[in-house]
Structure formats: C-alpha cells, structure tokens
C-alpha cells in the first residue's frame, strides 16, 4: 500500500530548476533511500514532502491526503533536516522533555528509552552546547523518532557519526521498519543506503537518474 507519493514534483526558483519531474512512491513500512551530491536537491525534496516548502507544480500525497491542501504537514511526522535548534543551556533529556510537551504524546519513560536507543545517556547532565557534533546528531535523531511517528524523514542521518554511530542508525532503521514505519532518508553513503533501503533513487541536478 502506497503511503507517500510524489507526483510530477517541480521546483523552480528565479528561473533556476531545483527539482524536475520527480515521481516517487513509497509503500507503508518500507525504507526509501535518496542519494546525491551536495546541492542535487535531496533536502529540497524532503522539505517538500514534509510540507515545509510548496512545490512549483506537482502533488505530494501522504496516506491519501494532499500535503499543503488537505493537511499543512503530514500527520504524525518525524523529521531531521539541517540542525535542530535545541536550547543550548538545557541537557539532551531536558530538551526532549521540553519538546515532548508541545504535543503531550509521550512521557518521561519514552524519552529516556529513546535517548538510550540512540546511544545517549538520559542522565547526562551536560548542556546541549557542550555536546560533540556526533552527540548533537544523535539527539536530532532522537527528537525525530521519540513520538513514534508513522513517517520519518531523515536528511543525512549519519552526518558527523563514527562507525559505531552509523551502525546504531542502521539498526534503528531496521527496527523502525519492523514496526511498520515508513522512512525516507538521504545520504551520500552508498553502502549505508544499500544496507537499510528497500529502494534507492539517485538524484542529480534535481532529477532522478538511473545508475
């Protein structure tokens, strides 16, 4: 059953084509990997699917509902795009607790569990500003998955992570997939994408290309 569908997505900014005729279909409970070099349009595509950017033409359907028309953002969405603006003077746990209060879907136990899942210590008192890049990335992943989203959009989730971190993300994606989550992720890392994805698309200069 198709969960996410991108139909003829085009995005042009000041006569510059960013995305051209993108068609994508992702089934529920599968992982779709998007590969491409910097500036190829990967992040733009994720933002359009998330409803953060309006495409010049084309339609995004998530669970049968048109993003930007029927719903502003896909329901029950988890995203990791760019660097989340966490509160620098709060610990990782406090940041997630704070964030969870916005929707009030989960409690302390779930937050602690999510932090452990991504390899962070829930009792670590260090402030976010003292975190290493890898820890920041892990916390970014934690915020995306903590509320048990149905759709997960991850932009370069292995950025700043060491081999152990990449293995953790890989295992996490496998587990989420087993739980029936739909995941769309981007990466430069071909090996990583091959390992976690059910389908892989390569994007170059805004277009899906065959390899």
């Amino acid at each position, binding site marked *: 059953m198709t969960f996410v569908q991108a139909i003829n997505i085009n995005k042009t*900014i000041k006569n510059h084509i960013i995305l051209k005729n993108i068609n994508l279909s992702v089934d529920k409970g599968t992982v779709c990997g998007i590969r491409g070099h910097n500036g190829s349009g990967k992040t733009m595509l994720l933002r359009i699917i998330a409803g953060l950017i309006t495409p010049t033409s084309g339609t995004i359907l998530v669970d049968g509902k048109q993003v930007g028309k029927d719903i502003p953002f896909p329901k029950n969405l988890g*995203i990791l795009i760019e660097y989340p603006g966490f*509160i620098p003077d709060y610990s990782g746990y406090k940041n997630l607790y*704070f964030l969870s209060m*916005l929707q009030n879907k989960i409690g302390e136990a779930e937050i602690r569990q999510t932090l452990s899942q991504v390899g962070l210590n829930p009792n670590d008192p260090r402030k976010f500003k003292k975190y290493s890049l890898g820890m920041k990335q892990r916390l970014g992943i934690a915020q995306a998955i903590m509320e048990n989203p149905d759709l997960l959009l991850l932009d370069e989730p292995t950025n700043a992570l060491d081999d152990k971190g990449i293995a953790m993300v890989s295992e996490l994606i496998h587990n989420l997939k087993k739980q029936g989550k739909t995941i769309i992720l981007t990466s430069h890392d071909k090996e990583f994408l091959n390992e976690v994805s059910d389908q892989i698309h390569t994007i170059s200069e805004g277009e899906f290309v065959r390899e």
Partner: protein
Amino acid sequence: MYRYLIKRDVLLRIYYAKGILIGTIFLLLYLMLLVFFGFSGKTGAQLFFDRVFGGFSYQALDAYRSGSPSELPISWILMRTLFILSIGNYFQDDFALNGEFVLVRVGKEKFIQSKFWSLLIYCILYNSCLVISILLCGFIIGLSFFPLSLKLFPYFIFLTLTSFVEGLLFEWFSIRFNKIFGFLAFVGLLFLSMFTKIIFFISSYTMFTRWSQANLLSDHWLILLVWLALLSWILYLAIKHVVLKKDLILRKEAES
C-alpha cells in the same frame, strides 16, 4: 503547548542576543564611569539616566531648529540600536533553519503567535533589566534618585510597548526584505521621531525627556496606547501574511 513554545522562544532569543546584551552592559558601565568621574550626587545620577533614556527633548529640538548648538543624544541612539540588534535574525533563522522540527509539531500559525508573544516577553525582560541596572547605577552615583521614580512607571510601560512595536517592525522588514532593510526602517523611525513633534512616530515614547519636560505625550497617553496596540496588531498580521505566503526557507538558502 503555548507555554513551552513561548518559553523556548524566549530562552533562545536571550541566548542568541547574549553578545549584544554583554555589549549593552559594557556601554552602561562606560557611561556610568564617565558620569561618575565628571559629576556627583543627584546631578550625576540624572545626567546618567538622561544619557541612556533621555533622548532628544522638545527644547533641544527647538534649539536645533533655530540653529542654536544642541547635542545629539548619541548614547540614547546607541542604546536603542543595541536593543534592535539584540532581536537579530532569530525569527527568520528559527523559521527557516533551526525550527523546522518544532514547526511540523505545532503548525505555522502557533509558531508565529509564539514568536509574537515571546518578543513581548523579551522586551519586558530587556527593559526591566535595563531600568533596574540604571536605577542601581543611579544609586551608586548619587543616592537621591527617587524624584524620577514617580514618572518612571508609566514611562517604563511605554518604553516596553514601544520597544515591542519597534521589534515587530524590524522583524517584518527583515522577513519581507532582509535584515539591512529592517535596520534602516528602524533608524528611519528613530530619526523621524527625534526631529519632529508628531506623536505618531513611536520612538518619541522611548525618550524620557519628552515625558518629563513636556505634556504633549502625557496628555495623549490613551491615544498613544491605542496607537501602539493598533500598530502591533497590524504588524502581527503583516508578519503572518508574509510567513504564510512565502517560502522563507528557500530565501534563507538562497541568501546563504
């Protein structure tokens, strides 16, 4: 939900403004020392207060217009400018770069409302800290500072509300065009307020001398209050309109 969203915004606004806030403290200390070594007692305290909050009085404006020598309120201009700079690019950055994970959780409308209320709270905190530090400095320089305090409370309310509307104006221009336009709009308003007696140029309300040495503003306080409320509402709608219609994220990317 709102409580947490607004708290996040206030904390991040303060965090991003910390460099400018430290600069403001140093400027205050510099002004205090300048007055401390030049004057003493009540004169020193009032002079210090006037330098920071006084602005350009109507008498000074008349003198300036008639060609008599009059001193421009450089310290006041600097203090106002530092305030606007402390607001910075937070709204746009959070919307277009760092706040996407919050945005998808709460929706655009609540995201904008939270920016509005957090700016008001930020202005209250900023001006409270400023007034308290000035009063403390006043006590250090000259102990008799109480005569001013009677007029200080209504002035503080107008100072805070005006700062809020100036902040909204700056944010609207920054989002609609860019930060430089926002800054120019603010400076334009500041100078129009300084060199005219038109009460609708709101930066006049941040000049304490115009409240204490003339009745033009205090006689029309209710109109001024309504005017500020109206302006803040209009600017809120304008910001909302721009944010809901524009692909801000794209513009930010194009800029970088």
